[in-house]
């Protein structure tokens, strides 16, 4: 090996850490490219499209109009009514899901007879595709041959069949009920898993100090569960805010738009009416709202000293 070539080798030589970083980067490069391709590119093109007014049709000619699509929606009462309706759906469904999910998780945690069967069967509603879930509940709610009317009539709660989905104030709550059936198991499973990892000694210590069951639950167990609750809440809130498929199947937004949520409105604008620009702008507004909500949760519930 001649001195000159030796010098070149020295120059090209990288430290061990640099080499590792390079290999590491090369290894993640394919997945980075894929992620950029399937998530960033659509986001950028949606943002781009939202700045245009286009006549009907996906490939139609477009005129640049800046942020006019956004300002139109933000000053449109229909938009705010729809946001209000979506928030109602989100708050009621996620709120009830959390309470019920926590109750079921507690129940499983006490290991009653058959708790393993209960835990396994909980997966089923969660595993059913939402669209199938929607179709099932549409049948259940049917006024003339649905199971709900049949059940309530036999129990003597109603004296004749009720057309549930024709009442604007009832229809939304029934969609929420169908969503509960699907999503409570998700929260229950997350919280049950978190409960299983909680140290028992803290509660025992609290019991020795004379705390009753309620105090132990509220002051010891619940704070320990906070990281798991945060995860469940963020995921479910974002999902609930974007609810679409279950509404599409059960009510198609009816009666009289009473179940049109913001995602459904976006779908109508984008695909049914062909307003690509307006639909894209709505998609971005949805993202904005979900980000705000996620931020609020993290502010409220996340403590940096805790590990998720």
């Amino acid at each position, binding site marked *: 090996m001649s001195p000159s070539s030796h010098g070149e080798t020295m120059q090209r030589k990288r430290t061990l850490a640099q080499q590792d970083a390079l*290999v590491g980067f*090369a*290894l993640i*490069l*394919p997945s980075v*490219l894929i992620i950029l391709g399937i998530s960033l590119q659509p986001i950028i093109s949606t943002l781009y499209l939202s700045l245009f007014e286009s*006549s*009907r*049709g*996906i*490939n*139609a000619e477009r005129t640049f109009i800046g942020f006019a699509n956004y300002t139109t929606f933000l000053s449109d009462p229909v938009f705010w009514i729809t946001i209000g309706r979506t928030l109602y759906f989100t708050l009621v469904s996620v709120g009830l899901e959390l309470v019920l999910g926590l109750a079921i998780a507690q129940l499983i945690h006490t290991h009653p007879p058959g708790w393993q069967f209960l835990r396994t069967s909980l997966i089923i509603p969660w595993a059913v595709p939402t669209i199938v879930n929607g179709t099932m509940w549409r049948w259940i709610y*049917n*006024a*003339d*041959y649905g199971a709900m009317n049949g059940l309530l009539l036999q129990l003597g709660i109603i004296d*004749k069949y009720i*057309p549930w*989905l*024709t*009442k*604007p104030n009832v229809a939304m709550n029934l969609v929420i009920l169908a969503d509960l059936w699907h999503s409570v198991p998700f929260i229950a499973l997350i919280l049950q898993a978190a409960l299983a990892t909680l140290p028992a000694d803290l509660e025992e210590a609290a019991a020795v100090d004379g705390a009753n069951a309620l105090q132990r639950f509220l002051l010891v167990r619940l704070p320990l569960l906070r990281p798991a609750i945060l995860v469940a809440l963020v995921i479910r809130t974002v999902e609930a805010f974007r609810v679409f498929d279950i509404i599409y199947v059960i*009510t*198609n*937004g*009816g*009666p*009289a*738009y*009473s179940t049109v949520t913001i995602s459904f409105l976006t*779908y*109508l604008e984008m*695909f*049914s*009416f*062909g307003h690509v620009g307006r639909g894209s702008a709505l998609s971005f507004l949805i993202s904005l709202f979900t980000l705000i909500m996620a931020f609020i949760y993290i502010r409220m519930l996340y403590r940096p000293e805790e590990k998720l």
Partner: protein
Amino acid sequence: MKAIRSMLFALMAIIMIASVVGCQPKQPAGPATIRVLTMEQAGPTVDEMNAIVGEFNKANPDIKVEIEYVSYDALHDKITTTMASKPPAYDVFLVDDIWYAEFAKAGYSLDVSDRITKDMRDKIFAAAWDIPTVGGKVYGMPWLLDEKYFFYNETLLKQAGFDAPPATWEELLTQAKVLKEQGIVEYPIVWSWGQYEAAICDWVILLYGNGGSLVDDKGAPAFNNEIGVKTLSWMVQTVDDGYTNPASISYVEEDVRNVFSQGKAAFAVNWTYMYDLVNFNKDESQVTGQIKMALMPAFEGSGQESASINGSMGFSVAATSPNQDAAWKYIEFLTSEDVQNRYSAHLLPIWQTSFEGENLTKLEGYTPANATTVPMFNKQFPFAHVRPKVSYYPEASKALQLALQEALTKQKTPEQALNAAAAKWVELGK
């Protein structure tokens, strides 16, 4: 270590190249594949459509047709979405009468004017050609020439002491009152008034049957007048009185068929396909043999004898399809007189010649339902009204659906609701 690293890089390079190459559309070797999008609703059954595809594939070894089904209410949005890709996901798709203007303008449907033969022109109903024709150009082949019919359960009517079906909507309410009071059925009539296109179809029947119209000669909305308000108020009143099944406000055609098939309604309004399923198919119906069809009633004093809705559809070739000739060949086969005659249980032919002379007798004999549906078609079709052919139809329709629903759920008066919808139509037409 170095060797391993080089191997890793090489491996990654291969993966990346392969993934890029894999994105290129593959040139199909062998038969040209034609992908067809159609609906599973209010027309031929999936079995019938599959059988036609089977016949075609057998007779044309160089073409392979693959067919997919969606519900009617998903069809429009699926077509507009898939047309964004090139080549499009479907070479052939089913287009409703009311979408042809939009699809022609957006460049989705291929202009097939040159492919229409003189034979087709002469032998197919002139009304059928109106479906795919926009601005003098033909953007598809008519396939389903349908309208809504009035169905009644003769057995239930006889129990209530009526020998004949109602000729007017007023008479219908008189009969409904007796049917309800005697406890024969709780809700004598069931409609498809859900927040779907189906509601517009039923509304057209009632509006035109009252002497009204959706649009005037200039294409401006004409439904927010005295006749429109009177008609919509009538609908609301029949729900309040318990003559209309209140669940109608959430129903589409299939719900109507299910309720009617269970004998829970004495009257129903639906497309041709319901007759065979409700009157002859014991798996689908509890009232086989009890169902009759009659001319759609109209309102007294309206000067109308009858009014119905023209709900016709055609098949289009995707304008960007790479296999246009093969696609057209399949459409020609599907809409040919022979195929349409043989598969006429749930859909009558577009061919006028099928309804003439000896052919008529033959057509009436193809399936048990045809003996009734074929003469009914001839009787009812002169009274069928079309919806406006405008490129913004889906949005206009949604506004009118909302108006009907707002009135039916008592959120607005019929007048307020119709005025709001008409204002939207004016705005869209600008």
